[in-house]
């Protein structure tokens, strides 16, 4: 009789633990979705920039400087912006289906505002640098701004999420960007090659890593509700 009661108690405890696990999975799933979407956004940005750069270089070789080149570049930029708008409209709503914790939502808004400011800073600085005839300073300056941007994105991500590794890849990317400034300053001729390899490679790596490790958040959550 006593063993039957113990067995029944153990069954209840096992079921309760399953329920806790399910509750954990449900609680953490929005973060998995947002991580997947963030990964897709990075890949979309990387792909768009790579494609635009390829077209830009091909047009430069074919048309040379002048009006036809500028007109074609205008169409490339227009196409890139249109494809990004369509792409983002398709993937970003995936996150809106799930409840977002206020801290995560604030973190996301702060990161968007930060990249808006940094994007403007990049455009203004590039205008100033090229007008002053200091073109060789553009790649390291761009790297410095990007490095600061990804470091601050990491800080926002860490504050907005209870998971330490939620945005850890951003800080690794920021370190790689800061380190890439050294070869750029030593060998200015290779600056753009280093810029493309580090930045584009990094953006793709972050995107793919975020997609692959999104499910890891669920594994991490296992047992959290066990008290």
């Amino acid at each position, binding site marked *: 009789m006593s063993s039957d009661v113990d067995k029944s*108690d153990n069954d*209840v*405890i096992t079921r*309760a*633990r399953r*329920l*806790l696990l*399910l*509750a*954990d999975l*449900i*609680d953490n*799933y*929005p973060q998995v979705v947002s991580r997947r979407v963030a990964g897709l956004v990075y890949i979309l940005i990387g792909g768009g920039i790579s494609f635009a750069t390829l077209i830009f270089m091909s047009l430069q070789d074919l048309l040379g400087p002048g009006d036809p080149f500028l007109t074609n570049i205008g169409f490339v930029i227009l196409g890139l912006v249109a494809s990004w708008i369509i792409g983002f409209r398709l993937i970003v709503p*995936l996150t*809106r*289906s*799930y*409840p977002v914790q206020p801290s995560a939502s604030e973190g996301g808004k702060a990161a968007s505002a930060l990249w808006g400011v940094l994007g403007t800073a990049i455009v203004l600085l590039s205008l100033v640098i090229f007008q002053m005839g200091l073109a060789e300073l553009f790649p390291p300056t761009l790297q410095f701004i990007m490095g600061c941007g990804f470091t601050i994105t990491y800080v926002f991500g860490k504050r907005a999420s209870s998971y330490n590794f939620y945005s850890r890849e951003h800080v690794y990317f920021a370190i790689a960007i800061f380190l890439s400034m050294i070869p750029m300053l030593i060998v200015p001729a290779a600056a753009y090659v280093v810029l493309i390899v580090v930045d584009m490679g990094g953006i793709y790596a972050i995107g793919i890593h975020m997609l692959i490790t999104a499910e890891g958040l669920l594994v991490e959550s296992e047992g959290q*509700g*066990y*008290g």
Partner: protein
Amino acid sequence: MSLDGELLSTLVGLMEEDSETMVPARLSLLVYLYFARHATFPVLQKKLGFTSGNLSSHLRKLEELGLIQISKSFVKLRPTTFAVLTKEGAERLRSQMVRMRELVSMVVDKETKSEE
């Protein structure tokens, strides 16, 4: 294992408060749609093992509560019913599960301590 009065009354309160969704069939539908985002009527029937009448009535009730959206469209020339979890549905399910987790973890904790 024994549930004390306070815990039991909180659990009963939670179930009464959300009596419309605290039905195993509706809860399983919401949980499935939470992870899948959307599903067709035959998929839900097959995965959750409902009869078509049973599934229809639960889906209609969840739609009335604003927790899911039901739409019909043609797939391969055949009319198909789609069910999509709304944001309110996701929020409701998540808050219910978090509250249930709090209650159940209290019981599990208590049980673990008493075993020690």
